[in-house]
Every structure is written in C-alpha cells, then in structure tokens.
C-alpha cells in the first residue's frame, strides 16, 4: 500500500461553500486524518444526502455518492452490506439527518452497521437559504418562522442514545485537535459511530456556537468527556459536574469544600453517564463534547455475512438443483 498524504484526499473540484463556513474546517480535519488510518484510499466511500454539508464527498478524493435528501444511511447500508471491507463515511446535516432522514438515521444506529456518521449541526437549513431546522432553538426567527419557531428541538445526542447507538460523540468545527481525535475514535469503533459536529453557518445562523468557541468563554461553556476522568471544566479547571441525590447534575466549584472525588467520573460504557452528559445544556451547564458512549455490539453486516457463509456451508449452491426443487415431471 502506498503512503498517502492529506493532499491525496483533496479532489479536483472547487470547494463551493461560503467563505467562512465551518464546513471548511471539518473538511480539513477529515482530509488530515484519512491518510493516518491505514486504509487504502480506494477503500474509502463517502456518502451524503443533500445540503451544504452533503456537498462534502465532492471534495474528498475517494469514492463518493452525493445521494438524495435524507437517504445517505440507506445507500451506505447497501454499500457496507455488500462490501464490509470498505470504510464507509456518511456526511449529513441537521436537516438531512434529523428532518427528512430521521428514520434512516435511527435505523442505521440500531442496526449498528460499521459506518461513521458525521452530522454537521449548524441548526439551520443552509442550502435552501435559511429555514429553521429540527435542532434550531425555540423562537428562532427565520424566513419560514417570521414570528419565531415554536417546535422544541431534538437533541441529536439524546436521539442517538434513544435509538440504541453504540458510539455517540460530539465535537466542534473549529476544535481541530479534538475533532481529529473524535474522528479517529469513530473510525476505530466497530459499529455505527455517530458524531454531532457543531458547525457555524456564517451566512444564515452566524455565531450559533460562539459561547462554545470564543476564546474567552469556551472553557466555561464546554466540558470535555474523558473516559475514567472526572467532569472538570473552566479556564482554571476549578469547576466540575456532580450528581445530586435525585440523579440530576449540578455544577460545583472545586476547592470550596468540594473535592474532585465528588465529581462524576465519566464512564463511556455506562448508559446513565451518557444520559447525564447529554442533559448538560447551556446556559446553566457547560455543553459536553467528546465521546458520550462507546460500547461493543455486533455489527449488522457481520451477522448478515455470517448467515450467508453458514447457508453456503450447509447447502452448497447448486442452481440447477434449485430450479428443480419440489415436484417435477418429465415429458419426453
């Protein structure tokens, strides 16, 4: 296998996102880690739906399918079932994955195909020029909601957990190192790896994640989940998340009679921890980023392939015999 570099993963197509769009940063991180995964370039397939985010495959010089709105998980399922050796990546948006494509998303998660799902959550429909999305906050003023949106949004993490996902994570477009790390973890995970990537749409929803990305405020507004480590955050790492007796989280300040040992020590294999981390929501709580859940579960395509192999072992394929099955009679 030849050694690839980032530029081998840059396609010859002009990138057509708006200048300043968060998608650029995500593209760069993906292109950066791909050569490091030990997978031959020709074995990568990027599958997307429709949306700004879903233009992604055009820009990555691997195999790719820019499919239809919401349906990338279905297409990816057929690819992965047919060719389990391929490394299949789904790129999707909050509209693509959670509005029209919500059902395919939850089904691929429950089936646990070994694919990586990157959901670019900009909390807006970018490509169609700025309608609110299922992740937009209540009261969002957009072209389609001039008096403010009234629907309670999905929390993509909670939804993925509810669907039984075996790997659930969150990162941020501009957190390049963190994003790379999470991408690699997703690749390493056997099973459906779901990553919500908070992404700034600087044209239609600029600054949606400013609190989490501004140098000044970000350490107060994010907490990084690390397996086996307590939930500590803050510029000087003096704040932490503790569980109350009613199982609800609370933010505490360390030192003021509160020790690190009272904080929740994160266990990414514990589903209750994932629920607690998912429930951390601003402004009173820092937003959690990192790996919420990573548990082992058999992959759909492995089991499906095993059945094929088993059937072949039990009954060697004989087409003529198949056609002749049952009662036959011969006219001569």
């Amino acid at each position, binding site marked *: 296998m030849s050694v690839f570099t980032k530029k081998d993963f840059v*396609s010859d*197509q002009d990138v057509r996102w708006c200048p300043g769009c968060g998608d650029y940063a995500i593209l760069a991180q993906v292109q950066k880690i791909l050569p490091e995964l030990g997978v*031959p*370039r*020709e*074995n*990568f*397939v*990027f*599958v997307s739906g*429709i949306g700004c985010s879903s233009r992604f*495959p*055009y820009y990555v*010089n*691997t*195999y*790719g*399918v*820019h*499919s*239809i709105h919401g*349906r990338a*998980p*279905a*297409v*990816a*399922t*057929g*690819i*992965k*079932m*047919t*060719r389990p*050796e*391929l490394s299949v990546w789904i790129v999707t948006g909050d509209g693509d994955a959670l509005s029209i494509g919500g*059902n*395919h998303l939850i*089904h691929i998660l429950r089936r646990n195909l070994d694919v990586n799902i990157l959901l670019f959550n900009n909390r807006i429909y970018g490509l169609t020029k700025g309608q609110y999305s299922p992740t937009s906050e209540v009261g969002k003023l957009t072209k389609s909601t001039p008096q403010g949106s009234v629907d309670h949004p999905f929390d993509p993490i909670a939804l993925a957990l509810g669907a039984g996902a075996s790997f659930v994570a969150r990162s941020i477009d501009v957190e390049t190192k963190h994003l790379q790390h999470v991408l690699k973890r997703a690749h390493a995970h056997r099973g459906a790896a779901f990553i919500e990537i908070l992404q700034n749409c600087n044209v239609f929803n600029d600054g949606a994640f400013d609190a989490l990305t501004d140098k000044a405020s970000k350490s107060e507004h994010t907490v990084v989940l690390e397996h086996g480590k307590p939930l500590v955050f803050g510029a000087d790492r003096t704040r932490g998340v503790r569980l109350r007796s009613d199982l609800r989280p609370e933010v505490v300040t360390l030192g003021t009679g509160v020790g690190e040992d009272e904080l929740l020590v994160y266990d990414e294999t514990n589903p209750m921890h994932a629920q607690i981390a998912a429930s951390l929501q601003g402004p009173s709580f820092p937003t959690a980023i990192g790996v919420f859940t990573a548990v082992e579960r058999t992959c759909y395509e492995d089991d*499906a392939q095993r*059945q*094929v192999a*088993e*059937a*072949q072992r*039990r*009954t060697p*394929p004989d*087409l*003529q015999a*198949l*056609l*002749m*099955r*049952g*009662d*036959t*009679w*011969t*006219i*001569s």
Partner: protein
Amino acid sequence: MPDSVSAAPKPIETRESVVIRFAGDSGDGMQVTGTQFTNATALAGNDLATLPDFPAEIRAPAGTLAGVSAFQLNFSSSDIFTPGDELDVLVAMNPAALRANLGDLRPGGLLVVDREGFTEHNLTKAGYETNPLENHSLAGYRVVPIDITRLTTAALKDLGLSARAVFRCRNFFSLGVMAWLYTRPTEPIENWIRHRFKGELVEANLRAFRAGLAFGENTELLPVAYQVQRAVIAPGTYRNITGNLATALGFVAAAQKAGRPLFLGSYPITPASDVLHELAALKQFDVHTFQAEDEIAGIGAALGAAFAGAIAITTTSGPGMNLKAETLGLALAIELPLVVTDIQRAGPSTGMPTKTEQADLLMAMYGRHGEAPVPILAAATPGDCFHMAFEAVRIAVKYMTPVVLLTDGYLANGSEPWPIPSVDQLADIPVRFRTDPTSFYPYLRDEETLARPWVIPGTPGLEHRVGGLEKDVLTGNVSYAPANHEQMVRLRARKIAGIAREVPPTEVFGPPDGELLLLGWGSTYGSIREATRQLQNEGLRVAHAHLRYLNPFPSDLGALLGRYRRVLVPEINLGQLVRLVRAEFLVPAVGFNKVQGRPFKVSEIAERARKLLRNERLEESAA
C-alpha cells in the same frame, strides 16, 4: 363400508378439459387441496393453469364470506392458457364458500358440498335465510351433498385425534373424492402427505384421502369417473411455479450468471413479500436480503449495493412504488444497474391489496420528476417471471440503468407448469468492472450501448464521485451548463431508446395482417391468447401480440399495428398501454378495460372483439 372397495369399477368418460374450484373457509386447507390436485394433474401429463384466491383478512371470522379461500384449476388434454372462465366443478366446504362462488359455476355444473357444514349458524353467517340445499335454488346444478365431516370422522375414529384435528383432515377427503372422479394418480398425493405431516397426522390424512377415493368409487351420486388425456406438451422437465417464486429464481439465476452477489433491499408488502421470503432462504447463492425500514431505504440500499458491485434489486407493490420514485430517479441519473420490481395490485391508494390490477404501467413510465426514462419489462405468465427477471438484470447491467419489471398479484400467486431451464443454456451476463485508470472518465460511454463504465470502490486510481446534480457529459462533475444539460437529457433518453435494438421482434399469434389485432401485456396473456384462438376458430382474421417490453417498444411494433384494421387493447386498468401506443404510433387503438381486481374471462375478450368486428362490418355496409 368405505374400506371394502367392492363391485365393478364405474365407467370412465373422457373430457377435453375441466375447470374445478375448491372453496372453503380459510382454515379449511383449500390452498393445499388445490395444490395437491394440481401436482397430481401435472404428473398426469395435462396442461393446466391455476388461480388461488385468498381472503383479504389474515384470519377472518370462520364461516363468513370474508373468510372464504379458494383455489381454481383448469386442466386439459390440449393447450391451456387460463384458469378457466366458468367452473365445471365447485367443491364448497361451507355455505359461505357456496355463496361466494356459485355464480361462477356453469349451468349444469357439478356442485360438491359438505352437507353437514350447512348448519343454521353457518347459513346465517353466510347471509342465507334458508338452506339452499333444501330450497331448490340449486336446481340448475348437479348437486352432490356429502357428509364429509362424518365420513372423515368415521375413517379416523380409532386414531385418538381431537375433533379439531379430525376436522382439519376433511380437505383430504374432498381431495380423495375429486381424485377419484378425475382419475388422478394417487401416489404423488400420498407421498406428499407422508412427507409433509408428522406422527399420526400422516395416517390421518392418508385415511381421509383414501376414504374420499372410496366414497367416490361407491357412491351412487357419481355414476361415472372422467379422464383427461395427456396433453401434447413440449418435452422437458416441468414443475409448477408461481410468479413470485419464478421472479425470485430468475434473479438468483441472473446473479449467478453474472458471477456477482445478489442484493435485495425490500420492505414487505402484499403481494410482493414472497419474493423477499424466497430470497431470504437462498443465502447460499450469495444472496443478501435486507428488510429495510421502508421502501425508500429498500431501494436506497439496493442502489448502494449496485455502486458497490452487486446485482441489486428491490421489490414492492404499488403503494411502495410511489416511495421508490425519487431514488429511481437518482439511479438513472448516476446510471447504475438496478431492477425495481412492481408486483401490481388493485389501487389507487391502499385499494384492494390482495387483488390484481395492471394500473401501474404509466407510473412506471412517468412516475418521476424530470425527464427520467427507464426500460420497462413485464412478465406474461407465472413462469415468464423467471425469464423477465433474468432479462431485467441483463439489460440493467449491459446498459447501466435501472429497469422496472412489472408483474401483478395474479401472476405472483398464480402458477403454471414451467419447463425448467437448463442452467447451462442460460446465457452468461458479462460484468466488466473498469479497473484501468488510463483515460478514465466516469461518464465516458460505450459507443454502442451508451453505457458508462461500472467502477466499484476498492479500485485504485479510479476514485470518483457520483450524484444527483446534473453532470458533465464526460467527467461527471457537477455542471449547470445549459447545453450540457440538454445533451445529458437526450443521452439518457437515447440510451434507453437504443435498447430497442435488442428487443426481440414481436411474436404474432395468428395472421400477419387482418381485421383485428389484440394487443396485450402482462398477465392478460392467457385470456387474450385463448380468446384469439376461439375467434380464429370462428374463422375471424384475428391475431394476438403480447408485449413483454413496454419501454422501449419493439422496433417492429409500429409497422405491425399498421397491418390490422383494428387494434383492441384489453387491460386490467382504464387504458394505459393503449395511451402509449396511440401517442407513439397515432393508431386508433381502442381499449377494453375491466377493473375488478380479477383477470379477464376469455369470453369477455372474445365477445368484445366480436362486437368490434360486427360494428366494423356495420360501418362498412353503411359506408
């Protein structure tokens, strides 16, 4: 004394053909009875055609009209094309079965009923106010009431079975009576019983069957037995096959002949589910079945599988076909091979799921936005489903295009004797994945077929992207250039139109020109063919052509239509093929339409044709 088969055998008369229907409650095992009678008949060397008729409900309340299940068989010493218009024999296991089916029994036909089933309770459930066995309303038929339940019970009495278990053997008693009446070979039926049942049920059903045979032999109600001579049938090995099974096998054979895995993405729906069931049980043939969350995911996964290099198919019926439209459009835009099978049922909307119809042809043609042409094939008979499924895969692969294959509920569940093809004689389906990176362009087309190359992931140096946005005519990159779009739209259309070059010439049954051409497609084949034969026998210059390629049409079709004074198009819809041929060839074809969830009777078509010809003569004499 049912056990002592005494006295001289009764006389045997010969019949050319017989139409028989077994009808009873859905719990009465009528499908089994019919199938076994059919198998025995096939082994007896008759030509035959069958028509099962299931109730719409899963388990309708016992004894109700909604719960009636029936199985019809037409067998003959000459060619048979349909299950028959009218019944010569009706076996009715209860009042509801009688009421639901009597209308189809010809005057003077034989009516066998289980007399004991005609209790007040059952009569009420069937909506009878008085017992038809007693009120002379059946005077026009040859009624043979038998105490089937009592006789079966007697035959099984020392087996220690529950009354319920005994009751469930009644169907084999009836089968025995009919097997005697039509001198069917009993061996295959008895063998099947031994194979199928376990423990004392083998003995029980054998006894019931034999009791039925003995009853026939002894009863005065049936003074003669009948025989139907062997038909002259092309040599070969045959089996009975339903359309759905044939469809499944056709796909397996095609994938095997292509040397590729077969991938089915599907969502259950009546009457298509059995193709999924069949294929799910054939994984040893490298068959991968994916029961998807819906029809969209079913076709989406199939398209992914095609991209990855499998022979990809999806199966559904009308309601699900709507949902596949968008992905079908993507498939034809990215030009990947994929077969979409629509096993039509009565619509619109949920309609009548268990009933047949041919009303999805225009949707197959036009049911997508934009200019989105796809080849359309349609099977004519249950066995033909095998060949058309195979052909659909061949065309899809050769032309890098999705193909729509149409069958329907009548073909799906109906069966016919099928000459089993020799695997060696099935043509290979060549699959050539492109692997050479020199001068590679994803949309560089084969000059003859206009197909683009099939390049699968895992091929080094050929990495490329496909998608639904309009593409550059060569590179496949996104292009909004106006002239490029027009070129692509026309190329896609030309590619499909070009398939006509290998559509076989239209077979005509009858004179090459004449007064009338009956033009059909799909499951009306048998009725039209039989009607044509009758008309020809009347000395009329009538021919029948049956289209298995609906898009593109065979290249000889226009000329062919022009050689007949009239073109009549019988369809189980309000006129769909007729619209296509009128628009294409500007011929004044007229439709003959029936939309009742069931096939044409031969007589209906023949009568309509006669009327048309009479009018023609009238017009002429008036002119």
